[in-house]
């Protein structure tokens, strides 16, 4: 990689700032309230607003959909330093991501590490162009925390695999174009050694989905069924029966994402809301218990952000941060949950409105419900604590 001098980087920062100011529409700088505010891309891409379209297309032209991937895959080819600057400048202006994509945050890193060059050329440019909407087929009804117990079967039929089984919790399965899937290819081997990592076109014959309704209401999650689905052999990533290493690698990226790494935009200042809603005494929140809880939340939120930065900085010097994704996942989601609980306490009866015309309140109460899933999805808090104790602290089994 080219080493960029400090002055070059300063220039890059100024240019980037100017470009973002000129090109990011005002409505794309408002905080994201829920997943409906994102553009998801895909074959049947639909923009939520004209501004969303403009923003996506400008970023696409600039090759900043995935600014840090290689240009041969449609990335922006930015160095780490440049990419950090872009992230910082986007955060400074509150710019939304132009697209929300599991292709970028989860599958991409796994393809980079495990796919053949041919597969990379086939799948990565589609991701950077926002043309494929990817979903994740990991969990099954009887394989949740014990993911390696999965039973969806892929039989070798010569020129293709034949898939039978079902997945659950597949986010956006009903809207996705493709699914990255864990399947069992060896039923005799110990459970971790018989799994393979397969990419499946959701338009294939025999794939069907059924939505799941959550406590927060309608949800993007689905059950996904595979009934004699034929999948070409070239869709196998990595080595047959060695899919577990890919699965784990991908999970570290998923966990960092869920833990909120790089998502500074959604951490809001609780105390400002609190001061608007709660009685004050000499400018202080007079409910001493709530004031204490807010201070603890904000203390840990802000130190957690420092910690993300510190660990990222360490990772750049070659310290292995892999198992630390469990720390990010655990701590970040526990913070989310307690933040939503506090926000609900602060906003009182208004924060409980399920129906009515107060749109903000309705979104917030659903976010409270949705946050309960944060400490479950991507591996529960208990599972993360287990990984920390075994892989980082080396405690015995």
């Amino acid at each position, binding site marked *: 990689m080219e080493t960029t001098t400090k002055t070059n980087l300063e220039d890059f920062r100024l240019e980037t700032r100017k470009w973002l100011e000129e090109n990011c529409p005002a409505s794309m700088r408002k905080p994201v309230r829920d997943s409906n505010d994102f553009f998801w891309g895909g074959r049947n891409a639909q923009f939520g607003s004209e501004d969303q379209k403009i923003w996506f297309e400008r970023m696409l032209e600039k090759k900043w959909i995935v600014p840090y991937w290689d240009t041969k895959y449609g990335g922006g080819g930015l160095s780490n330093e440049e990419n950090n600057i872009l992230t910082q400048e986007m955060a400074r202006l509150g710019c939304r991501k132009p697209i929300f994509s599991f292709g970028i945050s989860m599958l991409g890193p796994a393809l980079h590490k495990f796919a053949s060059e041919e597969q990379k050329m086939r799948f990565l440019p589609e991701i950077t162009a926002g043309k494929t909407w990817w979903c994740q087929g990991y969990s099954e009804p009887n394989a949740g925390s014990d993911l390696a117990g999965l039973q969806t079967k892929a039989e070798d039929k010569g020129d293709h695999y034949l898939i039978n089984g079902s997945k659950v919790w597949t986010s956006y399965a009903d809207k996705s174009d493709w699914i990255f899937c864990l399947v069992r290819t060896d039923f005799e081997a110990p459970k971790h050694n018989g799994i393979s990592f397969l990419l499946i076109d959701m338009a294939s014959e025999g794939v069907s989905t059924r939505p799941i309704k959550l406590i927060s209401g309608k949800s993007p999650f689905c059950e996904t069924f595979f009934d004699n689905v034929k999948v070409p052999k070239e869709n196998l990533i990595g080595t047959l029966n060695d899919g577990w290493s890919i699965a784990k690698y991908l999970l570290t990226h998923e966990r960092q994402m869920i833990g909120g790494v790089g998502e500074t935009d959604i951490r809001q200042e609780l105390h400002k809301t609190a001061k608007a809603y709660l009685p004050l005494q000499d400018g202080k929140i007079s409910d001493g218990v709530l004031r204490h809880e*807010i201070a603890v939340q904000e203390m840990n939120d802000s*130190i957690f952000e420092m910690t993300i930065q510190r660990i990222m900085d360490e990772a750049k010097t070659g310290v292995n941060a892999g198992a630390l994704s469990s720390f990010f996942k*655990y701590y970040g989601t526990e913070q989310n949950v307690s933040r939503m609980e506090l926000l609900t306490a602060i906003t009182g009866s208004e924060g409980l409105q399920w129906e009515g015309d107060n749109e903000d309140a309705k979104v917030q109460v659903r976010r409270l419900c949705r946050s309960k899933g944060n400490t479950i999805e991507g591996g529960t808090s208990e599972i993360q*604590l287990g990984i920390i104790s075994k892989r980082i*602290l080396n*405690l015995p089994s």
Partner: protein
Amino acid sequence: MTLILNEEQKMLKDSANEFLAMNSPVEKFRTLRDENYKPFDKELWQEIVEMGWTALTIPEQYNGLDFGYVGFGQVLEEMGKCLTKAPLLSSIGLCATALVKSSNEELKNNWIPELMNGTKHMAFAQDEKTYFDPTSIETTASESSNGYLINGSKIMVIDGGSADAFIVTANTSDNETALFVIDSKAEGVTIHTETLLDAGTYANIHFNQVSIKNEDRLSDKGKGDELLNYINNTAAICLSAEMLGIVTEAFDQTIAYLQERQQFGKRIGSYQALQHRAAKLFCEIELCKSVVIKALQALDKGDVNIDKLASLAKAKLGETIKLTTNEAIQMHGGIGVTDDVNIGFYFKRARVAQRLFGDYSYHLDRYARLNAY
């Protein structure tokens, strides 16, 4: 700016670790305690001076190393691990910092060289009450013909029993906070030492009509509160660095115990109830590491957010050190409450460190106030 140590800082940390493991292991702490609570070992102090640690935060113009507080914090962290006793925090972290920051050139020139070469040490006398409340000062400094008369009492003065001089906070007749340098042998000064839970000796000092010169006033007119606030921020951050050492060492010893102790035919570290508690501690300690380095960097940069960062650091470390030392004892079982093992020392030192320069609730409240709620 990255939140990691640079090469030089890393080297300093490693050399401190090596030096202290050799010259000041925890057994040394035990010996000092058993020798009637000896405050510190003079030979070790001279070696510390030779290592250059007393010069780390001193600017070049006073012949210091100008290495910065990040480096100083690494040394304190390592000292925390070994429970090393030396007047480094009191004399350098607090008093030399105060001198450097002041504009009284005479006091600076008189004292900084002697503090750096370790021939003398100074202690910082501010507390008057059982709780930390630095701004309501009852000690008075009334103007006299060619200076001031100091009257009042201070408590919990770190290393105050052996100090050559004190930096004292007092209230002037126009109701202003001011800081003074007072010789410990001055007439009217009585010193009484007390041993606290951590086997450290702290001084209670009484000032009765102590007469000092105008030139011994360290803070400029109208600047006393600012200087005091700066010292207390520095103190909170430096002590947080020491506390980080205590936290990590108590944690590491506990993890080692979980890996070796067997009950019910299995190592106790295999029990999930303990694993999850250990993993939670690990997370809190990760946060502690970040806030300490961030706050130390802020001291070096002269960051405008220093008040908030000092309170964040001391609050977080105060919370985590309590949790960690309690869990450490509990997970050691019966042996954890015996004087034979060292883990109890960390708990004892922790409780005193928690109180010094403001405890968890003081700093959490201050953090909320600084954020205007």
